[in-house]
């Protein structure tokens, strides 16, 4: 009754008049609603964390846009230094996949010693892109790709173990449409030949595709992503 005396004309006046049962039901309902919100939020936060790595201009941001169900825009996107993104839902082969927020980092070699190591340690899935046209036509570019894979491969194997690593990464040779016709049929063969001389030769046996990321409804790419997120 002290509340009534204290509150005077205010709305708190009616509170003690509500039956105890109503208070109980209200309390249970509020607890249930809060629990549902907290649980759904926590479940929503769990998802796949990804790292898309590779040299400058290989299509990293394009692949992020594909996963975000958006189109890559040369003006708005431009070249990347570092761009933070929020978590998002991705539709991969008619399946909704939750991708955790992270950073899209540029292709500069400056990022390799620090960011690559951090990404491999922290992320669930690693996708390495390289421009297959540049790879086949420019020795310096090919050497740069090899240096990066030399860095990545032992760390991936150490993280997941030799057997589990297969489902955790993909290797995508982009700009396949730009490879001259006379070279394109033997591109994979050439890639295989060059990789076989390297420490990371084992990488090619798994989820590797040559693709044109600008092509709509790219079946090869869909299959590759399905293997990763399936």
């Amino acid at each position, binding site marked *: 009754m002290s509340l009534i005396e204290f509150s005077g004309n205010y709305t708190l006046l009616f509170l003690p008049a509500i039956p105890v049962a109503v208070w109980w039901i209200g309390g249970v309902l509020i607890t249930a609603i809060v629990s549902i919100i907290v649980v759904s939020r926590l479940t929503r936060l769990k998802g796949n964390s990804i790292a898309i790595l590779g040299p400058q201009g290989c299509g990293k941001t394009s692949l992020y846009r594909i996963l975000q169900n958006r189109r890559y825009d040369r003006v708005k996107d431009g*070249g990347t230094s570092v761009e933070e993104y*929020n978590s998002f839902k991705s539709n991969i082969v008619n399946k909704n996949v939750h991708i955790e927020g992270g950073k899209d980092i540029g292709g500069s070699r400056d990022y390799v010693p620090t960011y690559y190591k951090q990404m491999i340690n922290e992320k669930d899935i690693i996708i390495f892109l390289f421009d297959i046209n540049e790879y086949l036509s420019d020795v310096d570019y090919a050497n740069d790709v090899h240096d990066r894979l030399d860095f990545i491969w032992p760390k991936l194997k150490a993280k997941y173990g030799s057997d589990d690593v297969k489902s955790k990464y993909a290797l995508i040779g982009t700009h396949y449409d730009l490879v001259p016709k006379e070279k394109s049929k033997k591109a994979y063969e050439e890639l295989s030949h060059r990789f076989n001389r390297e420490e990371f030769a084992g990488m090619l046996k798994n989820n590797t595709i040559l693709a044109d990321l600008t092509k709509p409804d790219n079946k090869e790419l869909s299959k590759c992503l399905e293997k990763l997120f399936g």
Partner: protein
Amino acid sequence: MKTILWTQNETPTTPTTILIDGVECVDEMKRQKAFALLNSANQNLSLSPKKREKLAKEHKISKQANFKVDTGSQSVYIQGNYEDVDAVGRRMPYMFLIFGTTDIDVARKELIDESKIIGRICYNIELAVLTDECKKKIQLKQLLPIAILIIVIMLILVLVNVV
């Protein structure tokens, strides 16, 4: 070290350019140190992904354009894209860090001047948008204590009235 400017070049096989205090740095150790400073400065930038998305749509600027004014370390960090494009037609990115100031106008002027040294042109619309956003944030920060004070006074008045 007062300023650091990092930018990519036209082709993937050309190394990036790093200017320290307006002078191109080729010493690998110094480059790595400068790059590490840029990367520690670009954590928790001022504009959220959602805000950047909105600004990019409204002003046709790049989605990664962002900034941070750090009063603790007395520095301003700006990232964005030049008007100059790379071999595949994308506007080339830059990251810029200046110590000893928290004034976005000073940082902007220094960035434009240092970019000229390497023959790069800053995208003026983008820099203007970032400067505006920075000033809005500063104004908001200045108004916040006043708003809190007004709310506290109002609460006190209500309580006094009730009692």
